[in-house]
């Protein structure tokens, strides 16, 4: 919400300002009337950080998470957006199953982060295996190109999550984790924080603007996460999120 208000002040396009204003009004209505901000209430993506001293008893942990998703989506009047099979495509009716990422950490706590992800912006995401010689310029070119190609589709202004390094799937996961960061919070690495800033400026020069109707606000933030990688590789993943960065966490 702060991100949108800041964008509203900075945007120079009249229609762009009008769009941002509608998004702010929409968020207020959604809050007051307890209805979803967007009809696409997402794929339930759940990040689990399981303390190694925790023992889970009384049933299957993943079943319990899915039971929670089912309850939350049904009782909360959220949309069932999941089909059971990518080709046969029958709606499961309760938005299960969730996509669950589990990390074992030290300690005796269980941390759950729920990040529902809309399909429209997810569809505009991409992974590319660059060559190490492509370097930082190659990374920038690819990220900006993904956002340019997405154009109006992912409901800009967007939040851009970038994962660099690791393997093919690690980069994709890093790009999703990058979206969990609080809006505009910088990377802890100075060079990466600078890359985030440069990408943010380049993307906002594209002119796509709010809803692709032209303007200087195409991205609200760019977050980059990195990991060690193979001597032969430079994987880069771009995960796009619409203007609504929905996530909630709980520690048990």
């Amino acid at each position: 919400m702060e991100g949108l208000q800041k964008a509203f002040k900075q945007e120079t396009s009249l229609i762009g300002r009008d769009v941002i204003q509608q998004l702010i009004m929409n968020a207020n209505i959604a809050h007051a009337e307890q209805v979803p901000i967007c009809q696409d209430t997402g794929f339930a993506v759940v990040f689990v950080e399981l303390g190694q001293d925790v023992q889970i008893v009384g049933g299957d942990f993943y079943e319990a998470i899915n039971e929670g998703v089912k309850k939350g989506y049904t009782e909360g009047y959220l949309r069932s957006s999941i089909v059971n099979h990518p080709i046969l495509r029958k709606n499961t009716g309760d938005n299960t199953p969730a996509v669950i990422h589990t990390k074992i950490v030290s300690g005796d706590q269980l941390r759950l982060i729920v990040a529902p992800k809309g399909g429209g912006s997810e569809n505009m995401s991409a992974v590319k295996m660059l060559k190490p010689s492509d370097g930082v310029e190659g990374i920038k070119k690819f990220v900006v190109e993904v956002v340019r190609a997405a154009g109006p589709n992912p409901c800009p202004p967007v939040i851009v999550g970038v994962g660099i390094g690791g393997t093919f799937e690690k980069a994709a996961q890093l790009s999703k984790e990058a979206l969990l960061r609080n809006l505009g919070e910088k990377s802890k690495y100075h060079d990466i924080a600078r890359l985030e800033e440069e990408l943010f400026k380049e993307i906002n020069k594209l002119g796509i603007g709010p809803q692709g109707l032209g303007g200087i606000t195409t991205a609200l933030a760019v977050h980059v996460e990195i990991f060690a990688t193979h001597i032969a590789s430079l994987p880069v993943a771009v995960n796009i999120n619409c203007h609504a960065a929905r996530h909630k966490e709980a520690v048990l």
Partner: protein
Amino acid sequence: MNRIRLTTPLTDAVAEQLQIGQQVLINGIIYTGRDAAHQRLIELIEQDQELPFELEGQVIYYVGPSPARPGRVIGSAGPTTSGRMDRYAPKLYALGIKATIGKGRRDAAVIRAIKQYKGIYLAVVGGAAALIARSIKEAGIIAFPDLGPEAIYRLVVEDFPAIVINDATGGDLYNESIKNYSMT
């Protein structure tokens, strides 16, 4: 901004008057349809079977609403990405659909069909789903209830706000507006 009030069904004459960038307020009946419903519509057309609604002059809104809370007409109801319906849209414009509503770009075949059959393509603000739902006064499923949120709904709308992206002259608002702000 000056908004043009439209009442459905739409005629060729009305569609031909509209230009990219114009803001409109739609009144009357519109029909919902997304990927799965479009596939079924096209199958019915190919098999020469009766369709759930008469296509002539009608408007299709690409949306899969969230469920209505008790006492409400509908849940949140913003647009989905139109490009996924590009494969089906030219056929539907050819058979009489006058307007489609969604978000995002259409491909060259759809833009050609819009020009050839005197149609329009409109966008609503993606993600403004709670706000948009306020202009929907009645909603009921008329076909394919097994598809859940992808079923075809008949909606009665009042002053439903949209903007013309592609018009019957072949214009494209996204191309025009991005040009004005691009610094690359």
